[in-house]
């Protein structure tokens, strides 16, 4: 008789995640009660907020695209053992570059070409920003965590500078952002909603591409070797420095694209909060998924639902929409602290 097919390596993490979910829900329930709101009412508000109307459901898809793109990019750097907290900045420079490229070409190119140029510019800018962080890390010996954080602030500063400086709206500079783009440059959406099918397709393609590249190719093997043990990989002939710069660039390409899509498909202008913290949120997604793309997708969907659903909390119950962040953070923290819920990245930073 053949032995029964058991998959303890899969079942156990699944149980752990379930346990993390329960503990996090209990914690968030306690926070709700502390704020005088019934957890059941909060759950209903979340659901209504995410799926109450077609527009809201579409917004879930709209949030999913940048989240999935950033998470895909982060898989490269995490697999190489790097805590790339600079993903947020890479998204912002992608948005800046897309705005600049669209503005520079809109008078000479057809709309579809302007959008394409803007997306490519976003990817290139994100990649450059990522590589710059990598160069600081590899050659400047600056911890990738602090290099990334520093670059995030620089990117944010650059965006604010442009919004309040050279790219300010005619006569007035405000947190509302730059002048809105011409309607012809807005990427097409599902019906009259805010969700762009192109953005979603690009995000799905990025996720599939990443999964295949990391899991099924020699390149992915080398990245994982570098992540497992940098020095050994180098001794065995893997060009470690080159590999690290490539993964920073790869992450930058996807995050930059996410930033470009935030401009071209969602906001149609550069705004100070163009990232909406989605880069940081993607870090939580990837940590919670233990760097497994099969889990990144459902967790990214869950986080998108929570993010969009939470927008109803202030209106429905007078609660802060940040409650979704509390649930997402608690979930990630509890999972990290549970046995075998390792985050996987190789080193401890500095």
């Amino acid at each position: 008789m053949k032995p029964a097919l058991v998959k303890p390596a899969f079942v156990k993490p699944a149980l752990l995640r379930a346990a993390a979910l329960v503990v996090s829900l209990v914690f968030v329930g306690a926070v709700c009660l502390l704020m005088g709101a019934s957890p059941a009412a909060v759950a209903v508000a979340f659901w209504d907020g995410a799926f109450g109307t077609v527009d809201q459901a579409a917004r879930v898809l709209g949030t999913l695209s940048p989240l999935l793109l950033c998470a895909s990019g982060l898989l490269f750097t995490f697999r190489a053992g790097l805590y790339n907290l600079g993903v947020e900045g890479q998204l912002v420079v992608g948005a800046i570059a897309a705005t600049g490229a669209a503005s520079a070409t809109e008078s000479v190119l057809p709309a579809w070409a302007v959008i394409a140029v803007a997306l490519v510019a976003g990817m290139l800018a994100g990649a450059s920003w990522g590589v710059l962080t990598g160069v600081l890390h590899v050659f400047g010996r600056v911890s990738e965590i602090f290099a990334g954080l520093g670059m995030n602030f620089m990117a944010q500063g650059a965006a604010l500078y442009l919004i309040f400086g050279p790219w300010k709206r005619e006569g007035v500079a405000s947190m509302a952002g730059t002048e809105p783009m011409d309607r012809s440059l807005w990427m097409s959406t599902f019906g009259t909603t805010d969700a762009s099918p192109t953005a979603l397709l690009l995000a799905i393609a990025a996720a599939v591409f990443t999964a295949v590249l990391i899991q099924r190719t020699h390149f992915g093997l080398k990245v994982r070797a570098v992540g497992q043990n940098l020095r050994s990989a180098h001794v065995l002939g893997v060009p470690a420095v080159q590999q690290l710069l490539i993964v920073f660039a790869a992450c930058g390409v996807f995050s930059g694209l996410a930033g470009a899509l935030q401009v071209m498909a969602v906001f149609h202008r550069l705004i100070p909060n163009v990232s909406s913290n989605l880069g940081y949120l993607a870090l939580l997604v990837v940590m919670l998924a233990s760097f497994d793309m099969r889990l990144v997708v459902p967790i990214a969907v869950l986080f998108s639902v929570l993010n969009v659903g939470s927008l109803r909390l202030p209106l429905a119950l007078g609660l802060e929409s940040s409650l979704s962040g509390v649930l997402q953070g608690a979930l990630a923290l509890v999972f990290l602290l549970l046995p075998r819920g390792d985050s996987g990245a190789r080193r401890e930073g500095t």
Partner: protein
Amino acid sequence: MDVVPIFATAIATSTPMVFAAIGETFSERAGVINLSAEGTIMLSAMTGFALAESTGSLLCGFAGAAITGMLVALIVAFGSITLQKSQIAIGFVLALLCADLSSVLGNPFVRIPGPTVPEMSIPVLRDIPILGPLLFRSDALVYASYLLILGATAYFYGTRAGLLLRATGEKPTSAYVRGAHVIRLRYAYTLFGGALMGIAGAAFSLDFKAGWSHRHTAGYGWIALAIVIFGGLHPTKVALGAYVFGVLQSVATLAQSSIPDVPTQVFGVAPFALMIGVLVISSRRRGGTQMV
């Protein structure tokens, strides 16, 4: 231009940063990077304000903020020291979680008046030319920060306990062999560092940026972490880094009116450009690349 008021303002506004950065220095010196600083400061600022407003006692506010900082640090310490999990991942997640938690729990306290730390000029000393207006026309918290800088420096480099603390972070095995209880020390200093970060939070909401609002201290925790690197884990240099940051902020405020063509946001990111430059230069002195 009279620079004394600029520097005096810079010193005053840098005080919360001094507490936070020296707190992180204690933690890192013991070998634990508490990356939760951003969230810790925000949650402590909210807790400190809420408690002080509810009880009418500033002391209660500061104590509550310090305890909040310690509790967050306890999670970092427990996760990284006892459970041997990634301290970077835990700290980062806590930074996000605590920031969101502060927004949710602090909602009832948004933009309402509360108690603030009173002014307390020091007689005689306040009349010393230049130094008087620069250093001694502030409040108790600012004076406490001077004592913290001096005390921390003396502790690190002038006491046996300080030597042990440095050994705990740099050479834990050697410290253990010499009889030090490394784990206990790491817990103690991480918690102490957390308490200082908590006080930094309350220093914002009860003094320098009095009150509470959503994301009240946004960015300061990350800046504190950067300043610790800038200062090379030396309390005096770390404090100096905090003051440089304060001066840059003061200059930014002034520049807003005198150089209207350059948006103030450019000055806001200057500390980070400076930090990256300093880190690269200091690593160049060490030589070589990190990887191979």
